C-alpha cells in the first residue's frame, strides 16, 4: 500500500499528464479551426469578387445611349402609352436563336410601328454553363454597338452567327466583321473598337444580369409585358405572340 506521500506524487503526475493533454487538445482544435476558417474565407472572398464582376477595373465605362428597362431599347422613340415589352436573352443560348428566328421579325415590326416599347436585357449565364466568356464579350460588344447606333441589327447578327459549339464568338467577328457588315466606318468604327477592346460596356453588362435577377428571370429566352412574364409554351404562332402581348398590355 502506498504512503500518502507517494499517492500525492502519483496525483501530481496525473495532473501534469492531463494538463499536457488539454494543451495538445487546444492546439489541435485551434489549428484545425483556423484552417477551416481560412479555407471558407478564401471561397467567400472569391465569391464576392465574382459577384462584382471584372467591371470595376474599367475606367471610362459607358452606359449605352438607349439604356432602358434594365437593358437597351430597340425603339427608343416609341410612344409612352405603348406596353413595355422586354426580351431577356443570352447570345450563346440556342433557344434564343430559335426565338429570334421565329419571333424576332414580328417583334421588330411591332417595335417599328410603335405598338410596343421594346427593349432587351442581355444575360451572360451561358458562359458559366459552357465554360467560355463569349456571352460576356458579345454582350459588351452589343453595348458598344448601341453607342455606334446599330444595336438592333448587331443583336440580330449575333444570333445568326451562333456556332452552337463551345467556341463562341471570335474577336474578329465581334470587332471587325459585324461592324463593317453593318456599315460602321471611320471615326465610329474606331470608337466601337476602342469600346470593345477596353470592355467599356462590361459594367452595364453586369448591371443587366443583376436587373434580370431582380426581375426574377432565370432562364432565356424570357419575354415580359409590363413586367409580367409570358409562358414560352403559349407562343405557338405569331398570332399567339400578338394575343399574349395584347392580353398583358
Amino acid at each position, binding site marked *: 500500500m502506498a504512503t500518502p506521500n507517494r499517492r500525492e506524487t502519483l496525483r501530481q503526475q496525473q495532473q501534469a499528464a492531463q494538463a499536457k493533454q488539454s494543451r495538445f487538445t487546444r492546439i489541435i482544435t485551434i489549428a484545425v479551426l483556423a484552417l477551416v476558417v481560412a479555407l*471558407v474565407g478564401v471561397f467567400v472572398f472569391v465569391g464576392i469578387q*465574382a*459577384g462584382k464582376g471584372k467591371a470595376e477595373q474599367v475606367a471610362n465605362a459607358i452606359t449605352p445611349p438607349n439604356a432602358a428597362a434594365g437593358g437597351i431599347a430597340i425603339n427608343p422613340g416609341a410612344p409612352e402609352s405603348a406596353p413595355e415589352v422586354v426580351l431577356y436573352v443570352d447570345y450563346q443560348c440556342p433557344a434564343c436563336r430559335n426565338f429570334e428566328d421565329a419571333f424576332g421579325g414580328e417583334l421588330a415590326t411591332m417595335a417599328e410601328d410603335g405598338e410596343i416599347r421594346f427593349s432587351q436585357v442581355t444575360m451572360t449565364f451561358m458562359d*458559366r454553363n459552357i465554360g467560355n466568356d463569349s456571352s460576356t464579350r458579345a454582350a459588351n460588344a452589343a453595348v458598344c454597338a448601341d453607342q455606334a447606333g446599330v444595336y438592333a441589327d448587331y443583336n440580330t447578327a449575333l444570333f445568326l452567327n451562333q456556332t452552337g459549339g463551345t467556341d463562341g464568338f471570335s474577336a474578329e467577328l465581334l470587332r471587325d466583321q459585324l461592324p463593317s457588315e453593318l456599315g460602321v466606318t471611320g471615326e465610329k468604327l474606331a470608337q466601337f473598337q476602342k469600346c470593345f477592346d477596353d470592355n467599356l460596356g462590361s459594367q452595364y453588362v453586369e448591371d443587366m444580369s443583376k436587373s434580370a*435577377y431582380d426581375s426574377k428571370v432565370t432562364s432565356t429566352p424570357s419575354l415580359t409585358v409590363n413586367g409580367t412574364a409570358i409562358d414560352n409554351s403559349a407562343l405557338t404562332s405569331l398570332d399567339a405572340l400578338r394575343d399574349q402581348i395584347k392580353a398583358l398590355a
Partner: protein
Amino acid sequence: MTRDWLDWVGLVARLILGGVLLVAGLLKVGSLGQSVLAVQAYQLLPYEMTFVIGYALPIVEIIVGLALLLGLFTRWSGLIGALMMVAFIIGISSAWTRGLSLDCGCFGGGGEISPEEAIAAYPLDIARDIGLALAGIWLTVRPESPFRLDSRLLQAGRVGL
C-alpha cells in the same frame, strides 16, 4: 468493454450525413459558376449574396462532410449539418410553394426544369433532407460513436467537444 448499441446508430448517422455532404460538395466544387446559378434559381437572396453562397457552400459541405466521416468535432459538425439541411428544406419548400420549377442543385446541376420533373422531385428532396437533418440532430444530442477522432485525439469527453 462492450459498446452501447446507440453508439452504432451514431456511426451510421455520421457515415450517411457525412458521406452525402462530402459527395454533394465534391460534385459542385469543380464548377462554382454552376453552383451560383443553382443558388440564383431559388430567387431568395440578393444578387451579390448568391455568389458568396454559390462559392462557399460546396467547400463548407466538403469540410463538414469530412469532419463527420472522421468524427472530428462531431457534435458541432452534426449541428452545422442539421442546420444546413433545415436551410435546404426551407429553400426547396419555398420554391415549391412559389410555383418555381427548379432542380434543387443539391448534387451539381440546378436551374430551371420542367414543372412535371420539379413536382416529382420536391417531395423526395425534402424527405431526404429531413432524414439527413435527423441524423445531424442525433449527433448534436449524442455524438458518441465508434471510430471517432474526437475521442482518440482530443479526449472529447473531458473537454466537451
